């Protein structure tokens, strides 16, 4: 057998894997520090998931409510995450988000304005004050394009349509990565002093999802396989409002901005059912009559917030219960009504892309009729365990930021807190990586045998004939995760899922692919399945161990939160081919911050 050698090798101080908001912001930071920086992404530059974000970016600038400040934002974030968040991340996030938003503006982003010309902020679930800076309902596009233009002007090297298969390691340190060009199928090696993962989430393991094909959990798996710790993998956010009809768009996101701008949820009896689902923890600050809830939109001080804007886990569970109780809409969702509450001009101005999306894809005019919506798999709270200040993972040479990193959002993320997370921690990870690279005098060395065996393994799907069809394996995986590891889980089903997932993982490992290496989606999917099945197993395993209900993790057999489990993260590790889950204590919040939760 001849050894596979890879001719194309790029030497970099900092390698950033992923060009969404987090990755680009990290690359900008590293490049600005003088590090030679490369940015790798699976799609074209500017098409990452971040482009789809709609509602806005959370930052306590206090432009609409001067009462707002970072402490209030911090408190909302921790409570939304059911106190499982890494307190230091939540603190840094709340403190730095306003500066990051102003920085975006300085780089050319044009946010909607207040009457006196400052950045306008809108209401979103779980946020005490109107806090989301936004551009209509296409904030993600504004964010990614601004960062893209900035990175382009700094001459950051971009390697687009290039997929990273594995991280390369040397003596327990990450020294770069092996990837392939999607276009040609040729391998490429990146040798780097420091590597930042910013690969986003995992939603493609589910059938009903708001996520794109890129969300195959690559970064989570790359980190795990290389030996880094993952935390909180049991916490997956199901967004309460995805489209349900027609089937072709099932799962597509309907922004929370609809409710922030006055839309309400109703069941088939026309009842605003959210009033029946206010949990104890939020009762004191939630309206208990429709009159008060409606008044709150304009009077944040004299009225309490509408239950339609409870944190997402609460709303998703409520919708799930209404549908199960037979009070759903014709296509198996519930109604989201803004048509009867706001005038058409307002709706079109505030929610242009929602208007467009429903009109074009469902034939529904949201200014005159209600939408049908239901929960959709949306966001992975869990991910690579990082040092809050630098984004460093537990493995030397490896950093992570954005959706692939864990800890910031605890068991449930508040809307708008992701885009801010991307720029706050993308920047920090970029700085952390640049500092780590600067501390190294020489380029690390790459082991050719490691490259050879990884490349050989990736090509094995072409040698095999009569193996499994990757599309079919993917479908099975989605069925399994949707039905057994979905919004509401039970011990029995999770046990069953373990077995099935191992079987699916085995099937994925013997996929065969026709055609050749050049731009071959069958092969790409076969590669993605390795990470998707790995992440799926992590979710199911951690979910089985967490015998309580909290945030994005609901157990029918353990419906209440367990205070003891509220003090631990589930840590997933990969050793000698085996996955393990270990509960480990959360970092303890200092007293001055803990004070904020006493009232």
């Amino acid at each position, binding site marked *: 057998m001849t050894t596979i050698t890879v001719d194309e090798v790029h030497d970099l101080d900092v390698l950033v894997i992923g060009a969404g908001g987090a990755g680009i912001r990290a690359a900008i930071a590293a490049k600005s520090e003088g590090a030679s920086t490369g940015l790798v992404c699976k799609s074209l530059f500017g098409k*990452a998931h971040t*482009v789809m974000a709609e509602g806005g970016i959370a930052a306590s600038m206090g432009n609409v409510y001067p009462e707002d400040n970072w402490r209030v934002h911090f408190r909302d974030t921790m409570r939304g995450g059911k106190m499982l968040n890494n307190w230091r991340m939540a603190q840094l996030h709340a403190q730095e988000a306003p500066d990051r938003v102003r920085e975006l503006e300085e780089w050319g982003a044009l946010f909607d304005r207040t009457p006196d*010309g400052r950045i306008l902020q809108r209401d979103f679930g779980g946020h005490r004050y109107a806090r989301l800076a936004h*551009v*209509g309902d296409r904030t993600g596009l504004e964010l990614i394009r601004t960062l893209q233009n900035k990175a382009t002007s700094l001459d950051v090297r971009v390697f687009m349509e290039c997929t990273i298969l594995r991280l390369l390691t040397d003596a327990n340190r990450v020294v770069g990565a092996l990837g392939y060009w999607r276009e040609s199928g040729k391998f490429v090696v990146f040798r780097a002093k420091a590597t930042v993962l910013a690969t986003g989430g995992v939603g493609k393991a589910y059938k009903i999802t708001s996520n794109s094909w890129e969300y195959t959990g690559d970064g989570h798996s790359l980190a795990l396989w290389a030996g880094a710790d993952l935390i909180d993998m049991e916490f997956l956010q199901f967004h309460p409002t995805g489209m349900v009809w027609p089937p*072709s768009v099932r799962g597509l996101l309907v922004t929370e901005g609809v409710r922030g701008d006055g839309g309400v949820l109703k069941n088939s009896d026309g009842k605003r059912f959210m009033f029946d689902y206010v949990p104890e923890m939020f009762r004191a600050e939630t309206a208990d009559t429709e009159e008060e809830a409606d008044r709150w939109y304009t009077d944040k001080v004299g009225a309490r917030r509408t239950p339609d804007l409870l944190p997402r886990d609460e709303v998703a569970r409520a919708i799930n219960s209404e549908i199960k109780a037979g009070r759903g809409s014709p296509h198996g969702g519930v109604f989201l009504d803004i048509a009867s509450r706001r005038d058409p001009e307002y709706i079109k101005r505030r929610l242009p892309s929602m208007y467009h999306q429903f009109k074009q894809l469902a034939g529904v005019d949201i200014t005159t009729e209600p939408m049908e919506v239901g929960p959709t798999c949306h966001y992975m709270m869990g991910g690579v365990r990082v040092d809050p200040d630098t984004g460093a993972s537990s493995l030397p040479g490896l950093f992570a930021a954005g959706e692939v990193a864990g800890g910031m959002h605890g068991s449930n993320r508040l809307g708008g807190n992701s885009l801010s997370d991307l720029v706050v921690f993308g920047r920090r990870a970029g700085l952390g990586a640049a500092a780590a690279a600067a501390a190294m005098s020489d380029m690390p060395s790459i082991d050719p045998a490691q490259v050879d065996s990884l490349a050989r393994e990736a090509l094995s799907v072409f040698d095999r004939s009569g193996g499994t069809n990757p599309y079919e394996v993917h479908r099975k995986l989605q069925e399994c995760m949707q039905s057994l590891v979905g919004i509401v889980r039970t011990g029995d089903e999770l046990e069953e899922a373990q077995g099935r997932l191992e079987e699916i993982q085995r099937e994925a490992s013997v996929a065969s692919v*026709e055609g050749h290496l050049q731009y071959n989606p069958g092969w790409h999917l076969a590669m993605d399945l390795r990470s998707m099945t790995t992440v799926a197993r992590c979710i199911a395993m951690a979910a089985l161990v967490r015998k309580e209900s909290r945030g994005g993790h609901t157990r029918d057999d353990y419906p209440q939160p367990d205070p003891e489990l509220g003090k631990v993260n589930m840590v997933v590790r990969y050793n000698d081919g085996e996955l393990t889950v270990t509960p480990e204590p959360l970092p303890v919040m200092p007293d001055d911050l803990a004070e904020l939760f006493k009232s």
Partner: protein
Amino acid sequence: MADVTMRVWRGTEDGGSFQEYQVHAEDGEVVLDLVHRLQATQANDLAVRWNCKAGKCGSCSAEINGMPKLMCMTRMNTLDVSQPITIAPMRTFPIIRDLVTDVSFNYEMAKQVPAFTPRAREADGTYRMDQKDVDRAQEFHKCIECFLCQNVCHVIRDHEENKGRYAGPRLFVRYAELEMHPLDTNDRRQLLRKRMGLGMCNITKCCTEVCPEEIHITDNAIIPLKERVVDASYDPLVWLGRKIARRIRPSGAPPAQAPGRAQTESAAG
């Protein structure tokens, strides 16, 4: 819905042809759904780009029955399915494989755009901008970089040799966005005239017609740019005056310069 006949272009830069498939279609589906079904069942290696499936990322551009469109936003019920549906890659860009083309030209041209350069902040650390001024540039920020406008623009569609000296409608939108940005201070007009080939556009409006974001590429971006470039060749002070006027204009006043066609015809060519 019954089965649909799809004629999909398969091949590489070395050549290829349309291949015919029978694909099952369901109610409410879009063209991309059928392409995916085809890929999953009959043509595992069919190359196609897509991401959001919601008209937000601009990845899935193609020519459907000869019309440049996003596959994810083209509903099957808008097409005559009694006839075969033809799906071809964008013609203006070199083929990589099947429906995937090499759009790197656009990224190369983007690298040449002189960066956004904001003026100083107000004393209180903010930037104050009027929503009305912001609206104008926000129209251009809606661009999802689908490159359909670039694909139809005859200046490069029919003339490969123009690619090095013509930015194309997408990039004109980008220049307009900067030119009309309430905070920007950079002057890119000579560059537009001399190096980006603004004069080669003869306002056929084909670009505007295909823009899925309904950006008025010609009326709101290209024509005002042409006017400003004319100003630049005559009198730098007029331009400067306009930039300043725009900033300090009190809210409610009409735009300093309404987009119009008056001078433009003479500016073309």
